[in-house]
């Protein structure tokens, strides 16, 4: 596992995201309310650039007409078919049993611990959450 500098903290304030490729893998890194998340930028459904979608909250309901809307900014909606994925875990909300996109753990390193330069190196620990589910359409 190698650590790749992706941005300075100042360059990725809350509500922003950054796209990059690491080892041929398209990834996006998000700052949601001061927390950092990384996602593979490929929807497991039909391969769309998932991370270009809007970040919304999670709409749930225990009774028709009543909506509990929580986790604002933590659900990404694929820009194609609108499938919802939890950016913390990659869990999808349309068909929880079958689809999951890959989430990558993101950490912020204190500046002095890494290589100095135009970018402060930041750790990007790649952890595979679950087997990449290939959609068999």
């Amino acid at each position, binding site marked *: 596992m190698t650590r790749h500098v992706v941005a300075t903290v100042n360059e990725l304030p809350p509500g922003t995201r950054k796209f990059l490729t690491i080892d041929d893998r398209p990834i996006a890194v998000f700052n949601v309310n001061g927390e950092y998340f990384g996602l593979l930028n490929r929807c497991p459904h039909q391969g769309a650039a998932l991370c270009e979608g809007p970040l*919304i909250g999670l709409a*749930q*309901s225990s*009774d*028709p*007409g*009543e909506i509990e809307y929580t986790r604002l900014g933590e659900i990404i909606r694929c820009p194609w078919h*609108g499938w919802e994925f939890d950016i913390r875990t990659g869990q999808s909300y349309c068909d929880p049993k079958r689809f999951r996109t890959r989430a990558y753990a993101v950490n912020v390193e204190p500046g002095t611990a890494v290589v100095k330069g135009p970018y402060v190196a930041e750790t990007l620990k790649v952890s595979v959450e679950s087997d990449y589910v290939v959609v068999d359409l």
Partner: protein
Amino acid sequence: MTAPVAGGVDCDLHPAVPHLTSLLPYLDDYWRDQVTTRGMTDLVSQSYPPNSPISARPDWRPARGKPGSRLEDMQAQALDAFGVRFGICNPLFGVQMVFSEDMAVAFTCALNDWLVKEWLDKDDRLRGSIVIPIQSVEKSVAEIERCARDKRFVQVLMLVMGDLPLGKRTYWPIYAAAERLGLPIGIHAGSSYHNPPTSVGWGSYHIEDYVAQAQAFQTQLTSLIVEGVFARHPKLTMVMLESGFTWLPPYLWRLHKFWRGIRMETPWVDRAPLEIVRSNIRFSLQPIDAPPEPEVLNRLFDHMQSDELLLFSTDYPHWQFDRDAALPEGISSDLVKKIMIDNPLATYGRLKEAAIKETMS
């Protein structure tokens, strides 16, 4: 020809009201005089012109009077012919077309009373569906509660084409009452004609209206599912009557595909539509919109992914099959038993109670 098994349930029979005046004994003085003084004739829906070939199989058409208006005919041609233990009456009389709420209530109550006196009382096998004055939700609930006291009413009857999509919350008190009383809701082909009978306007022909029934069932099923009727009323069953069913699998594929992408619009739909259909929706057997080759129908059954969805029906006296060929060719005797006995008894709680009582006595 696939033979029926004795002791089944015919889930769709149509006893006919001979004429509006047949209801006079069941109306109060005011309405009796309204009918006669104002020269009201009959309440017959264009959905079933009495002389249309669909409305009566040629050998079931009586010499005089409306098809299905004589008990003896129904007994011989449907109940005895298929050896059923129970037959559920779904009266099709044009009460849903009426615009006045009060008139609708009067005629509907009279219709339900007529069914009891002239049919249910005269043959132990017969059961009834409560026709409701859909023009008033409140009065519909009252009528359900009134008729449900008679245990021979086993279902609530609504038409597939009315004023609003059936999933709309306006109608939910009806569903609450039915669920509370353990009664399925039967949704039957037919229109109140308060809206054009297709989703693209008024067609020109009776055949066009009739073919369009299947599409109406599709949009209504969407409405019921996405409005969350079964989220609010998980124990409620709805039976699609005379709807056809061969459209179901591709319909569900489409609904499922869109539900995944637009889930957030209706977040109370927290199960796949196919699961909801499996748990809460059933279909009467007739009409079978498929070619006669068993291979095709067997593939369709495979697409449906459940053998619990179909409930035996003749749709008497409507013309859906010839001779005794009510059941599809080439199905196993296990499936025949499921369709004729197990599935209907599992769906209609009051039949099951009666069947248990009979077995015990």
